[in-house]
């Protein structure tokens, strides 16, 4: 018997195969059910799907519920299910940084993380940087230095710069170049981005609270 066949529906006592047989549901039909726990090499592992599963996400301090297939990325869940469209889908495979969000204090390409992996973690998107109608000083620096043209890479860049400055509040020009290499822009706004980061860093040194 494979591990899969030994799977028990959580709390139901039914094997997955029996459950599916009894309900007459084929694997391709989306249905909502929670995860199951399987033992792999003696350790418990959560198994989701194959249908849609509920997911609870903490985004910008607010709780969101959605129902998605396990293969849905965090980026897709944000954009399609929650209408949080600040993070953009561009390369969709972890190269360009347009989908950058902060998860538990770390920068993450949300195209490369499943929505179900985001459960129980604190997620910050570009929408979470403003305080009410007030722009974050870094956002203001992007405007002042015109660190944007079409603006499609901008939200990812803003989030990346925020996390970069949190980690390195007083960067050299070389550190800016190195630290922001994970985001690509097509219009060519890097000169503005460099200046914006420098301005925001200077603002911090000036003692202004910078979020």
């Amino acid at each position: 018997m494979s591990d899969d066949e030994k799977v028990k529906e959580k709390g139901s006592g039914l094997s997955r195969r029996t459950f599916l047989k009894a309900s007459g549901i084929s694997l391709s039909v989306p249905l909502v059910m929670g995860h199951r726990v399987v033992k792999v090499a003696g350790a418990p592992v959560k198994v989701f799907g194959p249908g849609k599963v509920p997911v609870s996400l903490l985004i910008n301090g607010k709780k969101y519920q959605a129902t998605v297939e396990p293969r849905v990325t965090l980026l897709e869940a944000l954009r399609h299910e929650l209408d949080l469209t600040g993070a953009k889908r561009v390369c969709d495979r972890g190269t360009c940084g347009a989908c950058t969000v902060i998860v538990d204090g770390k920068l993450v390409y949300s195209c490369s993380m499943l929505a179900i992996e985001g459960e129980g973690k604190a997620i910050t998107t570009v929408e979470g940087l403003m305080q009410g109608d007030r722009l974050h000083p870094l956002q203001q620096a992007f405007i002042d230095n015109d660190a944007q043209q079409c603006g499609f890479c901008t939200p990812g860049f803003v989030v990346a710069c925020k996390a970069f400055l949190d980690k390195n509040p007083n960067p050299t020009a070389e550190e800016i170049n190195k630290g922001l290499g994970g985001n690509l822009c097509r219009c060519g706004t890097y000169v503005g981005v460099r200046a914006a980061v420098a301005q925001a860093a200077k603002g911090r040194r000036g003692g202004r609270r910078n979020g």
Partner: protein
Amino acid sequence: MADYKWPEAEKRTHLGKSISRIDGADKVSGRAKYTYDINRPGMLYGKVVRSKYARAKIVSIDTSAAEKMAGVKAVHVIIEPGSEIRWAGEEIVAVAAVDEPTAEDAARAIKIKYEKLAHNVIDTDPKAVGDNARPPSEQTVGDADKAFKEAEVTVEGFYGLTSITHCCLESHGSITEWEGDKNLLVHISTQAVSQIAGQLAGPLETPAGNIRVKQDHIGGGFGSKFGPDRWDITGARLSKKAGGKPVKIMLERDAELMVAGMRPPAYARVKLGAMKDGRVVAWESESWSSGGLGGGGSPPIPYVFVVPNQKRKHTAIATNVGSARAWRAPAHPQACLITMGALEDLAAKLNMDPYDLFLKNIDLTGARADVYREEMKIAADLIGWKAKWHPRGDKNAGPVKRGLGLSIHTWGGGGHASDCDITIQPDGSVEVKMGTQDLGVGTRTALRIVAADTFAIPLDSVNVLIGDNRYPASGGSGGSTTIGGISASTRRGSLDALDALFAKVAPSLGAQPADLEAFQGTIRVKSDPSKSVTWKQACAKIGATPITVRGKNPGPGTLTSSGVGGVQMADVSVDVETGIVKINKIVAVQDCGLVVNKKLAESQCYGALIMGVAYSLYEEKVMDVKTGRMLNPNMEFYKLAGIADIGELVVHMMTGKGYDERGVIGLGEPPVVSPGAVISNAVANAIGVRVPTLPLTPDRVLEALEKKGGTNNASI
């Protein structure tokens, strides 16, 4: 009637200043909604099944499994069996489903049988492609044979640029939905808001007037989004089949790179004839290009320098590759590298500083020779040309060689046809409505600047409404024609609206309308400035019905004109052991007539330089000869420049007397023309040998060094 001209420098309140873009806050906060971000109620997701072969006949299409899948709402066959596929990635079938995973599953469940046919994706050699090379066209100017005989020196070289793609970060696509049977609502990522409905009307057999087109923001176009494209029309068909539900089709990244953009390649063998003092007397070239099945026209060579005697031969090559689209400054970067490369090689052969050689021939550039002279001097100062330039081949020891290159370029950029409505409300607020689009160049901001400057009121008193085909029609954003068109129509409309306001206000000031002027938030009597009312008081005289005036371009007065010149210089380092090229500094000196917004004009130039670095060093659409497919339809192997790759960039805008009076001229294309040439020339100057083909990847650099006799001889 108003005097339709731009205000004198001392009377400008906003025009020409450095002003932040008005939609900046929306963009940095994620609030700006792009087509890709629009989620409509009940929206379906569309996916397109594309050909895996570059050329094939479709034998059969089986959509039955997809149609049976739960959640699939519509299936549409785009190309019927029996038809021929012309390039890998061509659209065959599309599906619409309740969510994206289901649409992807359904697309995968569609079975297509092909009969493979012979294809060609080679564009680098006309002798290798048989009938796909069209009969060459030949052109002559003057008497090239005679001029070459008289020339004291000749130099020959080969120059090429591979095909690249547009790689818009927001891929192409739309959300289409039928409202009832008759009306179509289209959210589309486009450079031509006012032109889409007319192009959809035919294929969808729907009056253009029933088609509403909207777009707030666009995530890059660069010439590739004048659409609608086949997938947009398909989306509308899927929507109809699904009872009118909105259908969103945005291209996946691979499709975006395979079929939704391409800058044609160009290759040329050039022979130049010159006198010993550097005067160029003869040009001979044999060039070839492609742009998909239609072949590819000749770039405009020789470029900028009109060599008196020319003999040119060009061959178009047909390829089974997604068709070429206008890529920022179509054909100019190609022509520029071929020409400026040849001139730099001539200078090297004559052992002349190319700066002197360019100046020696500058009168061949025609009407803008003086502009180029002035710009070359400024650029040389900014990069330290005289101090840093050395003859070809850096003689310093060590593997890293440094060099300088220069290039000049031109573009037209006169304003396109543009209508707008200017409304002055009785409460003093102002609206500009125009069916234009802001590609990120600051169109919205420019409209606000022009209107606010004309009325002499604060910027935030002007509300700008664009991105809707129900507003007055304005041209598509291509060829650097937008800023000239939209600023001219807004200026004319605003001047006329101001005249209408003067007529309402004049009696209360005891003056004639013609004796009034707008000045710092007031309307005052020119001959007696003590007589004035505030803008708000003036607008209160309008009555209940606001003043609305249609502004137009073209129209009276010189508000826009055509033709600009630019000079660029680059300082690069090349590691002759690794072949890696690094940009130290690039200087761009650019004229564009009257600058509307200095900050955003500079941004355009910085952006163009960065795109230029990318296509000079990294970007290449790599086609597999055997399968006919693109090998790098993704962003890890189709490389753009990153923030660390661009060196120091310096931009200098030519403004003031001699420039401003020409009116507003477009800037989107010109600064992107020269980077390929300046970087290639700087590399040649550094390592002592021409690396013939862009992008200047390490393998190409090392190959060029090898041919010359190995990396150890780099400095010889």
